[in-house]
């Protein structure tokens, strides 16, 4: 692999990312399964980078999962999106930052569509006004939350306490990244690094000192497929997609998987558990699975945040082997406590995946 070749390509995919004044939109999946990731993103932006980022209680889903499961129309989705823009406008913000990649894809697609078809934008303005009395401005800048982290990766790494380096051997940790289909497949120029060799995650991991591994099924989908997961009868599709990726990355012995989209870590994490239960097969070392982190969790971990304050206890694949490699200190009992230190008791231990 000639990594210089990728870097040359990246020059063609320089994306404009606003440097402040962000209106944040939470993700359906991320806030349920990785709430600590959203918390970490906001903390890094507000407290470390001193940015103005607004988390409006009035905003909602963009309807993305329902849209891509075909139960709501494009018109419905566009009007809900228009309401999000209206909230942003009313609060005096210009730059829209979704936490979700499906949303990012939808916002991008809608903004492109409106640019080429102003009559559709007009129609949506009318529908939104009719439904809510609200009016909106189209964001001056749209960036996924990972784009912002990428933009400030050097500042974040500069403040970090840890590196993605094995503290015992001094060797860089081996990272595979999974970008999420709707980040740049539809509009390659809207993704940092383009659709084929995106660098939004690989660039971040390298900044933290990791060795990023490109594996044959890197580009393949995690298998969400919307209706292919939401409906139980279809989940064979979903797990087979994830399994193809695990089989392809396993020979490289990755220390961790990092992810961009909220859905992908959910699948790459839970399907490892299911494969272990169904087939007795575990990936990663010592039967412990390959840990999966979101880009926010990774950044928080490097900053030295308590792993149990950023939500790593919600993962099915245990993160402790990774924490040990990096040299992050943690208290095992604290993993199962609330903010006040009251214990919940431990979850049942799965049969196949080895939990520390």
């Amino acid at each position, binding site marked *: 692999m000639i990594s210089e070749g990728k870097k040359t390509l990246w020059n063609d995919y320089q994306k404009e990312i606003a440097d402040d004044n962000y209106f944040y939109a939470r993700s359906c999946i991320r806030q349920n399964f990785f*709430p*600590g990731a959203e*918390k*970490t993103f906001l903390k890094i932006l507000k407290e470390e980078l001193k940015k103005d980022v607004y*988390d409006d*209680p*009035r905003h*909602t*889903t963009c*309807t*993305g999962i*329902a849209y891509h*499961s*075909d*139960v*709501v*129309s494009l*018109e*419905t989705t566009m*009007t*809900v999106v228009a*309401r999000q823009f209206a909230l942003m406008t009313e609060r005096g913000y210009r730059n829209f930052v979704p936490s979700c990649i499906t949303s990012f894809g939808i916002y991008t697609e809608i903004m492109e*569509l409106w640019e080429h078809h102003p009559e*559709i934008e007009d129609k949506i303005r009318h*529908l939104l006004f009719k*439904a*809510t009395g609200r009016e909106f401005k189209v964001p001056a800048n749209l960036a996924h939350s990972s784009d912002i982290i990428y933009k400030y990766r050097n500042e974040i790494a500069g403040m970090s306490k840890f590196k993605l380096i094995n503290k015992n051997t001094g060797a860089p940790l081996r990272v595979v990244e999974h970008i999420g*289909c709707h980040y740049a*497949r*539809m509009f*390659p120029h809207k993704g940092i690094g383009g659709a084929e060799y995106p660098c939004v995650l690989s660039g971040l991991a390298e900044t933290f000192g990791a060795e990023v591994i490109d594996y044959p099924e890197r580009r393949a*989908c995690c*298998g*969400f*497929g*919307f*209706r*292919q997961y*939401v*409906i*139980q009868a*279809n*989940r064979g*599709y979903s797990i*087979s*997609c994830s399994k193809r990726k695990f089989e392809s990355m396993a020979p490289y012995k990755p220390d961790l998987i990092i992810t961009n989209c909220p859905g992908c870590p959910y699948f790459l994490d*839970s399907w490892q558990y*299911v494969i272990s*239960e169904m087939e007795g097969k575990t990936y990663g070392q010592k039967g412990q699975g390959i840990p999966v982190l979101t880009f926010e969790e990774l950044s928080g971990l490097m900053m030295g945040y308590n792993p*149990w304050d950023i*939500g790593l*206890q*919600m993962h099915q694949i245990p993160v402790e082997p990774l924490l040990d490699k990096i040299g992050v200190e943690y208290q095992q009992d604290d993993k199962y406590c*609330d*903010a006040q230190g009251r214990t*919940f*008791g*431990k*979850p049942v*231990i799965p049969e196949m995946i080895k939990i520390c």
Partner: protein
Amino acid sequence: MKNYFQRLKSDIRFEEGLRACINCGTCTAICPAASFYDYDPKKIATQVQSANDEVIEALLKSDTIWYCGECMSCKTRCPRGNTPGLIIMALRQLSIETGFFVESEKGRQVLALKRILGGSILNRGYCVHISTMNHALHPEQGPVWGWIRDNAKGLYNRLGGNFEEEGPGALRKIADEDLKELESIFEVTQALSRFESIEKFSAAKAKSMGYNLTEKADDPYFQMVYTANSGKHKKSRL
């Protein structure tokens, strides 16, 4: 009147998604659905570009149009700038409008999707919510999920959540006036009437299959469409 092709053409996604297919297979080669199901996106493109309403009607009634995962990988690849994924979205919309979705096993799942996702959006403001994702519906979530659900408030609030409370934060309670706005948008953009029609077509189909569709969470027809798998969808290997 069978003007399916014309109706497809009125969907902007169809117009953006199909120019003319060269049958090269770059979409099929990387399509996750094509590697799992008996599915071929280039065949869809060829069929719809025939502009033949009989062929399109057969598609609208088939399992085939429900196999795609809408990952949109096809968009990046097509040398002609087509997007089979967008064609599928237009076909699915038309299948729902015409009620043909109930004619196939995968199509009937629309009812479950409508209830799960539509219900969650209108009641919670988000497509999914921990409160509705129980272990029976999501066994793949493993023991950790049960533990998270049992300790939701304390756990989410440690992780930046504002569980079921007013104000900002993960899994906050979305205020009634905001939910009303969503419902109003669903009203004016005909999402509610679309939901009603999904229920109506499904109820009729349920009846013909010997069910009496109710609104209960454990409704047998709902359970059936959520779990039924004839096992006849996968690609047969040579």
